[in-house]
């Protein structure tokens, strides 16, 4: 019965973005920063779906057509075909074939609600905080240890929710955090450096690409996208409309 009113997955997130803008003054230009930073990473990845379209500017995003206000076309991931795979093996075997073994140092899940009506606020999502706290606790690390992040980005606003929920910035300050290329390679927290769902690929279980990119980064094999000295990575995926969250900390094992 969720879709009987003409809702779409975009509109499900648009209402969350609208409330975040209302509560914290987040702007469409700040949302656009996420898409712009990630497109740059995609231009440096030969397998990305949108990299060949070239760099984006904030004005490009703001000029793209409205899908569900305030989310515009370039705030939304495309849908495309594709696939990815990972090989799971022992650390010893990975080493023996010349690959630094990257593993989960910690992981966690959080599930807060089913219907959006059951949450007191639609601009902060405790499920993401629970997942991240569990993962960081298991790894014995803090946000300051993280060199590179992969945060599920079905829409630009998701990344801001993910940053705030983990405490990479204060709740409400995600918009400022991403300004001036905050998520770019070389920025304060390089995030979705392959382009993410927005510009790399949104095919099937697209979190696989986020995971692969983090492994490449932590193996120092990300080529022109490489984050210098990346040692620890933060992975976060979301399901539904911020109801379900999964987080993991990656590093060499």
């Amino acid at each position: 019965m969720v879709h009987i009113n003409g809702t779409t997955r975009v509109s499900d997130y648009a209402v969350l973005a609208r409330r975040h803008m209302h509560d914290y003054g987040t702007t469409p230009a700040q949302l656009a920063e996420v898409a712009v930073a990630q497109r740059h990473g995609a231009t440096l990845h030969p397998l990305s779906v949108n990299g060949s379209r070239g760099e984006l500017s904030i004005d490009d995003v703001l000029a793209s057509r409205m899908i569900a206000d305030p989310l515009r076309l370039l705030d939304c991931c495309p849908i495309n075909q594709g696939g990815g795979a990972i090989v799971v093996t022992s650390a010893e075997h990975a080493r023996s074939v010349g690959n630094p073994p990257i593993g989960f140092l910690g992981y966690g899940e959080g599930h807060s609600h089913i219907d959006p009506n059951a949450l007191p606020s639609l601009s902060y999502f405790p499920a993401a905080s629970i997942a991240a706290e569990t993962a960081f606790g298991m790894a014995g690390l803090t946000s300051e240890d993280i060199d590179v992040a992969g945060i599920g980005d079905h829409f630009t606003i998701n990344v801001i929710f993910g940053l705030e929920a983990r405490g990479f910035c204060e709740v409400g300050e995600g918009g400022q955090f991403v300004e001036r290329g905050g998520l770019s390679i070389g920025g304060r927290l390089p995030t979705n450096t392959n382009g993410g769902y927005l510009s790399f690929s949104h095919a099937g279980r697209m979190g696989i690409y986020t995971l692969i990119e983090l492994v490449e980064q932590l193996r120092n094999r990300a080529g022109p996208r490489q984050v210098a000295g990346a040692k620890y990575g933060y992975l976060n995926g979301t399901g539904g409309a911020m109801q379900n969250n999964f987080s993991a900390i990656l590093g060499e094992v």
Partner: protein
Amino acid sequence: MSETDEKFLPEDLPNWQIPYWDALRDHRLAVQRCNECGSLRNVPKELCAHCHSAGATWTEIPGGGEIYTYTVVHRAPTPAYQAEAPYVLAHVAMDAGIRMIGRVRDIDPEEVRIGLRVKASYDDVSSLWTLLQFEPET
């Protein structure tokens, strides 16, 4: 397929959800009130989201509220909806203390604001189904 069908009417509803739809058909709003903690449920649920109790009593609530958040949909899910785009979808904080989702009719999308007072209205889409929507409170 009729245009109405293209607007995703409910299907295969369990019996315990029927009172919500019966009330809408009578142009009333009814939600479950948890027998244990008193929380209201929307959409209909088998368990309370707050205390996880099963027991609930159907309760009529007033139709007034204010817009908690909203979007204006420009790209709709089906041609039948697209014919009506752009349209306003809102999460409404009802005076009864629960949020409900619906279209907001009879308003210029440019005029919609968080905090705007609205009241429930009822869209009789067929002889069997009535959908909850909202309109500005006058």
